[in-house]
């Protein structure tokens, strides 16, 4: 029998079905409805893990997400680190082992799917315990759109852990009826296994639904494993219950030490006896239920140790059941190695601890009171207040749209929780102007027994001689009372500082059990009220969420949209190597068999310079600017004059910010008196459209002009090289392609078998070139016709790398690569593109700022490595030797940096563009570029290295 601690009957487990699992290599059994923790406890196993820093044995210390002890690594069905044995639902084939504090990420890809769902509701209720169910029923009956989410496998909350009765029947019968009633409302979404882990602005809550984790290998493949619910609620009811708080004493981390309420959960929900002989240590009445229930189930309760001198009114109940109650006593420590063997019990009065007696036990239950789970309230920036009686932080203010109900608000009796849930839901409905339903009955709960006041006790003075070094506050971080003493002794006063100094609250559980203890102990050490110490900030997520779940479907190819041109399939078939340009996939080069990039690019460049090449330039940004004032707008935004451009002509233009720095460049085609086609850089397309819109809307709403992106309405194929005229002329015989009839910087419309085509004499290479524009629908057809027409001339498709080399050889900058937002048109040597006639345009006034007249501004120049071999790495710094031939002492002044660098077929050597201080004055000088460990001498040249006279553009 592998489950000697399983009760003969009871619990919410399916005893008719047995599932097999392995833990630390041992094969064990359990039942559906078990957690890994309950199945381990049923087999008699308390020790689960080993602590991270000290290597101490650690075990299951709670029954759900607040457990600081039972950290496991799952191996099957899929490797996952750092899960809690208490929250892993058991299934057949589960394989896990205990962790030494840290886990191991999977080294195989996660094949599961993750997803996200958006949902909008009137009322979101978090927690399906008595308060949450009452709130959800109230809202649903009123006809509101409701979502009820709960992190457990079934509804009921604390009712799953006890023996409470409602309407004279077991309370879980009411839970089942409530769930059934909610299911009958069409506008109610009820999700179990769903943890609301973060509350954000304006009623926005994120919740993680675990859909198939509990099914193991039986999980259907078509269902996502987990999904994130993005819920927007007009009103939120937080009914998240409370976490029991331990008391700190020496060796309080020994496996077998457990929160009293957790023992009750294991008994009633899972049918597990967490031990045979128990000592119960408490500061309040709630642990008496655990003592009595366990005793009834056959556990020998050796003693109930109550820190209160007057004890509890429930003493008689215990004594009637034969339990010994020691009032005015505390547990000062434990004995044992892998498991508690003795609790050390001593009298306790006025803060003084007497002599200890060892009481034999294999289970030590502890209750130091209850901390309301105020996480979601606090995340929504709700202020907390410290309650002196409960020794806990409660919601301290009303928030718009978020209210706390039940034990999360400090209401701890069943009748009170039901009433509170209803009250809060009605208040939420009232704020939404929804009247409550006429029949809004909640079940009758027995009159609550008024509990005796608890005593607030954070820690038992350490009489073991260990001076608090074994009195654990945060088990997951192995942080002790001694660590807090040291932090306070080092002068730390703020709880946030103590947290960072001791690491308390920074582990997997984010301080669910340790946080308030730390507040209390720090306040005690500083002699200040706990209210003044406060808590550390609660931040999402409430419990750990896997990155895979947050990523959802937005991974791999769906991480970011991929934009492809109409020719993409052709490029793929042609063997293109692609590069990412923003979201675009662009062919970088087309290697032939045996070619590397360098060889391919040299071949492609030579074709464009000596024969004819063709590029897919469709990603170029295109903006259609229309309206009677279109020319006025462009005159204001470009540095040069656009209004004087004739219909049928093209002009290059530069755009600056108000600071005078270049933000984009491109060519502008005048299509009509009131219509322009503005071409932008590939990366600048959206920015330039936004820029135009901003000015038109915010400054010049009187301009009659509209701007529309037409980037994807036209494909663009530059046909480039001395033979381009032959190719274009033969394909479009009705166009006179001579320089006289079709000069540089003009455009013409034509047609190919009825398909409209636009041709433009624009050159980004310095060569004779015709850009061919056509509707993307005809992209492949026109591209293939161009290739066919170019075959006699050896037409060569080229990619972005060749495009860059060709433009750099001509000194044409790429905005954003050769510039960085601190570069004026003058720095680029483009004073010719800055109008002197226009009274104003964006950026003009800044050109006369003194900083822009500095002769030492960085200017765009060319660099030629003297060795004719080195391709300077882009981004390299530029330095110069002193007159004596030595480098200046460090830090060596930097003159600038390399912005573009390539191997040139035309020059038969590498070259670069660079921004260099006072660069144009340095033309002819030799400066140095550190490459690897050596200084490469380079000659400074003008930026235009090929055809500086511009003789080639007309062929």
């Amino acid at each position, binding site marked *: 029998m592998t489950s000697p601690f399983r009760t003969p009957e009871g619990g919410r487990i399916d005893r008719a079905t047995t599932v097999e699992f392995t833990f630390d290599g041992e094969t064990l059994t359990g039942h559906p409805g078990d957690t890994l923790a309950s199945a381990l406890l049923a087999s008699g196993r308390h020790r689960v893990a080993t602590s991270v820093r000290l290597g101490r044995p650690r075990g299951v210390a709670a029954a759900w997400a607040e457990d600081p002890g039972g950290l496991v690594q799952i191996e099957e069905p899929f490797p996952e680190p750092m899960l809690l044995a208490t929250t892993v639902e058991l299934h057949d084939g589960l394989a896990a082992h205990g962790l030494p504090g840290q886990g191991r990420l999977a080294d195989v890809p996660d094949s599961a799917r993750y997803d996200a769902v958006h949902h909008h509701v009137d009322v979101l209720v978090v927690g399906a315990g008595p308060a949450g169910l009452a709130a959800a029923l109230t809202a649903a009956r009123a006809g509101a759109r409701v979502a009820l989410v709960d992190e457990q496998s079934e509804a009921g909350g604390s009712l799953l852990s006890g023996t409470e009765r409602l309407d004279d029947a077991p309370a879980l019968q009411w839970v089942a009826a409530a769930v059934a009633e909610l299911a009958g409302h069409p506008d109610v979404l009820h999700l179990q296994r769903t943890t609301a882990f973060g509350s*954000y602005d304006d009623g926005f809550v994120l919740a993680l639904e675990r859909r198939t984790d509990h099914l193991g290998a039986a999980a259907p493949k078509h269902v996502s494993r987990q999904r994130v619910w993005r819920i*927007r609620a007009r009103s939120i009811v937080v009914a998240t219950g409370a976490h029991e708080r331990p008391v700190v004493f020496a060796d309080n981390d020994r496996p077998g030490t457990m929160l009293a309420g957790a023992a009750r959960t294991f008994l009633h929900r899972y049918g597990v006896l967490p031990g045979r002989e128990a000592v119960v240590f408490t500061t309040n009445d709630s642990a008496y239920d655990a003592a009595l229930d366990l005793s009834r189930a056959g556990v020998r309760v050796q003693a109930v140790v109550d820190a209160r001198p007057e004890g509890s009114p429930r003493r008689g109940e215990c004594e009637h059941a034969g339990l010994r109650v020691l009032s005015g006593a505390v547990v000062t420590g434990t004995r044992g190695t892998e498991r508690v063997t003795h609790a050390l019990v001593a009298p306790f009065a006025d803060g003084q601890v007497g002599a200890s007696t060892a009481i034999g036990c294999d289970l030590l239950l502890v209750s130091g009171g209850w901390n309301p789970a105020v996480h979601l309230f606090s995340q929504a920036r709700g202020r907390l207040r410290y309650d002196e009686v409960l020794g806990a932080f409660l919601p301290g203010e009303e928030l718009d749209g978020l209210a706390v109900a039940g034990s999360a608000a400090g209401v701890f009796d069943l009748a009170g929780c039901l009433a509170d849930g209803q009250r809060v839901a009605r208040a939420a409905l009232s704020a939404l102007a929804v009247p409550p339903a006429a029949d809004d009955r909640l079940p009758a709960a027995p009159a609550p027994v008024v509990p005796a006041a608890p005593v607030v006790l954070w820690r038992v003075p350490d009489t073991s001689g260990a001076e608090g070094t074994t009195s654990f506050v945060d088990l997951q971080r192995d942080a002790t009372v001694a660590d807090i003493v040291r932090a306070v002794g080092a002068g730390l006063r703020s709880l946030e500082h103590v947290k960072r100094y001791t690491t308390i609250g920074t582990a997997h559980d984010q301080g669910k059990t340790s946080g308030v203890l730390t507040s209390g102990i720090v306040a005690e050490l500083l002699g200040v009220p706990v209210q003044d110490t406060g808590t550390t900030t609660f931040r999402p997520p409430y419990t750990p969420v896997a990155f895979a779940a947050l990523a959802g479907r937005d991974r791999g190819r769906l991480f970011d949209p991929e934009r492809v041109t109409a020719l993409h399939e052709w490029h793929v078939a042609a063997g293109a190597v692609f590069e990412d340009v923003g979201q675009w996939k662009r062919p970088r080069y087309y290697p032939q068999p045996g070619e590397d990039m360098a060889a391919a690019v040299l071949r492609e460049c030579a074709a464009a310079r000596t024969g004819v090449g063709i590029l897919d330039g469709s990603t170029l940004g295109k903006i259609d600017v229309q309206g009677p004032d279109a020319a006025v707008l462009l005159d204001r935004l470009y540095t040069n004059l656009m209004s004087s451009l004739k219909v049928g002509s093209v002009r290059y233009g530069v755009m600056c910010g*108000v600071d005078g720095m270049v933000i984009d460049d491109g060519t502008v085609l005048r299509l009509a008196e009131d219509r322009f086609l503005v071409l932008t850089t590939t990366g600048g397309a959206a920015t330039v459209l936004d820029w135009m819109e901003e000015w038109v809307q915010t400054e010049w*709403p009187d301009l009659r002009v509209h701007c529309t992106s037409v980037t994807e309405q036209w494909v663009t194929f530059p046909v480039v090289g001395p033979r381009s005229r032959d190719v274009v002329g033969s394909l479009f015989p009705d166009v006179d392609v001579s320089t006289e009839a079709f000069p540089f910087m003009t455009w013409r419309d034509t047609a190919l078998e009825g398909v409209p085509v636009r041709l433009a004499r624009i050159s980004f290479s310095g060569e004779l070139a015709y850009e061919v524009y056509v509707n993307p629908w005809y992209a492949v057809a026109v591209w293939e016709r161009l290739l066919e027409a170019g075959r006699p001339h050896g037409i060569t498709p080229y990619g972005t790398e060749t495009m860059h080399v060709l433009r750099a050889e001509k000194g044409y900058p790429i905005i954003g690569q050769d510039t960085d937002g601190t570069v004026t048109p003058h720095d680029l040597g483009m004073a010719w593109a800055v109008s002197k006639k226009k009274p104003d345009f964006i950026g003009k*006034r800044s050109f*006369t700022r003194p900083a822009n007249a500095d002769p030492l501004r960085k200017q765009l120049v060319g660099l030629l490595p003297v060795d004719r071999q080195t391709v300077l790495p882009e981004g390299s710094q530029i330095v110069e030797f002193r007159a004596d031939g030595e480098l200046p002492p460090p830090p060596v002044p930097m003159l600038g940096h390399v912005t573009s660098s390539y191997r040139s077929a035309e020059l038969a050597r590498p070259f670069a563009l660079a921004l260099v201080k006072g660069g144009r004055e340095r033309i002819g000088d030799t400066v140095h570029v550190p490459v690897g460990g050596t200084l490469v001498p380079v000659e400074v040249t003008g930026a235009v290295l090929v055809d500086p006279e511009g003789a080639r553009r007309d062929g």
Partner: protein
Amino acid sequence: MQLIPCPWCGPREEAEFSYGGQAHVPYPDSPAELSDEEWAHYVFFRANPKGRFAERWNHGAGCRRWFNAIRDTATYRFERVYRLDDPKPGVTELARSREEGTAP
């Protein structure tokens, strides 16, 4: 994720919007007549108050329109959104709209 009330579209998630800095900083009528210092104030200098601030916003992933807003930079609360051609709301007007519950 905060909701921002676009005056044209109504409340939308903040990720649809982009921030445009301080509102009511018009492009100068005659930049050429400004001193370097005056021009620098237009280009570089912006207020950075803690509290109520008139700002420009753009609903870039929605109607693509620019609008102005009065927002509290300490609480992030939008007290008022208004169209570009509306005058900047005064303090008394803001107080009144809050009392009447017409503030967003």
